[in-house]
């Protein structure tokens, strides 16, 4: 049942070299730099997003993901969700307003898979980039590279999926849209949504805690995914796999890496979800087809290369 969590709001990604990273996320992905702070972090957004930023890059000596944030409808919902988390036994940390520039207070917590998440209600509303909110044109001119439309979801690898499910579904009001079950019926992958999208966040079982698989950005069309593939070749960017289609979610996708080895995805299409939809199940025996619908075999890299 929905509890006021609205959508993915931001992700903070660690990079080894800020200059290289900013070039990758702006020139290639087509995000727009919107600010920097005195910690040296760089704030970016995709053009169709209404808030000031959705991607924050932080230079560090180990790549990966610091946290993913979800925006909730209002302060009352934030207070209630915070209380619900505490009542459920989840330790929460208060991150004061303005710790991220132009973002309100954040409630941060770490789930048993080792990943940090945040909830927040306020962020500066700057509107879609390059188009007016009155009689808007179809798209803005001057976008770079892949022209990413929005930050869409992230996939994390870690243990304790059942406990993570309980927090996301029972406390935060997400729905299980798709899952992978092994022959004993244990859930080894879970795709969770709080919207009509087929996933807003996903987890795949992995023994090591806190690993980051990818941050994903939405594109409008298959043509745009092919064009993204062209750009990956033109820029000699490290590719993982694609363009292809997923069985899970049925999205059309390509995976590649940022200059620090963090995986990115751009994709289009995919199924939709309403609260009355029952979860879709893929069998772990057919994982190759579930992940790469055309090849029907997994590339080892997809399961093991993480930051």
């Amino acid at each position: 049942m929905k509890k006021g969590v609205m959508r993915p709001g931001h992700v903070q990604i660690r990079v080894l070299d800020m200059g290289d990273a900013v070039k990758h996320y702006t020139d290639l992905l087509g995000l727009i730099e919107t600010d920097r702070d005195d910690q040296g972090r760089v704030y970016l957004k995709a053009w169709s997003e209404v808030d000031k930023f959705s991607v924050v890059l932080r230079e560090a000596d180990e790549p990966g993901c610091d946290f993913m944030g979800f925006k909730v409808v209002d302060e009352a919902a934030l207070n209630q969700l915070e209380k619900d988390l505490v009542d459920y036994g989840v330790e929460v940390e208060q991150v004061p307003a303005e710790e991220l520039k132009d973002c309100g207070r954040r409630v941060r917590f770490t789930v048993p898979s080792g990943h940090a998440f945040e909830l927040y209600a306020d962020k500066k509303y700057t509107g879609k980039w390059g188009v007016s909110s009155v009689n808007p044109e179809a798209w803005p001119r001057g976008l770079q590279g892949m022209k990413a439309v929005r930050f869409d979801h992230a996939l994390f690898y870690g243990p304790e999926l059942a406990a993570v499910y309980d927090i996301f579904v029972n406390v935060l009001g997400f729905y299980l849209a798709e899952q992978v079950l092994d022959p004993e019926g244990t859930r080894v992958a879970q795709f969770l949504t709080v919207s009509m999208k087929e996933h807003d966040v996903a987890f795949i079982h992995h023994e090591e805690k806190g690993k980051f698989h990818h941050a994903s950005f939405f594109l409008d069309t298959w043509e745009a995914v092919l064009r993204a593939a062209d750009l990956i070749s033109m820029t000699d960017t490290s590719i993982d796999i694609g363009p292809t289609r997923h069985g899970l979610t049925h999205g059309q996708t390509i995976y590649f890496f940022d200059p620090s080895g963090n995986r990115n995805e751009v994709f289009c299409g995919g199924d939709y979800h309403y609260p009355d939809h029952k979860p879709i199940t893929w069998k772990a025996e057919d994982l190759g087809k579930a992940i790469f619908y055309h090849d029907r075999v997994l590339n080892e890299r997809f399961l093991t290369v993480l930051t």
Partner: protein
Amino acid sequence: MAEFQVFNRTTGDHFICQEGQSVLKAMEQLGMKCVPVGCRGGGCGFCKIRVLEGDFECGKMSKVHAPPDAVEKGEVLACRIYPLTDLTIECVPLPEAALAKQTTTKPLR
């Protein structure tokens, strides 16, 4: 432009690496598979090798996969080293992730 010979002692393969090119990229370009290829960005630790002989320059690498004391011993990431002389390397087996057996779900492989 200078080119250097890279010899992988574990597999017996050798290949040419151009000046300014990473060892992993040189290997991949020649269609060879004697070092595992991951992110190609110094982030995942997949391409870890040990350099037994020769000099090289290092790009930025994740401290988790290439901590300074290991780098000192020649344990580096092939995607982030650029030879300055001919190199002799060997493969370093991937460390299995420190496994917590009490987890309630199972790995996918």
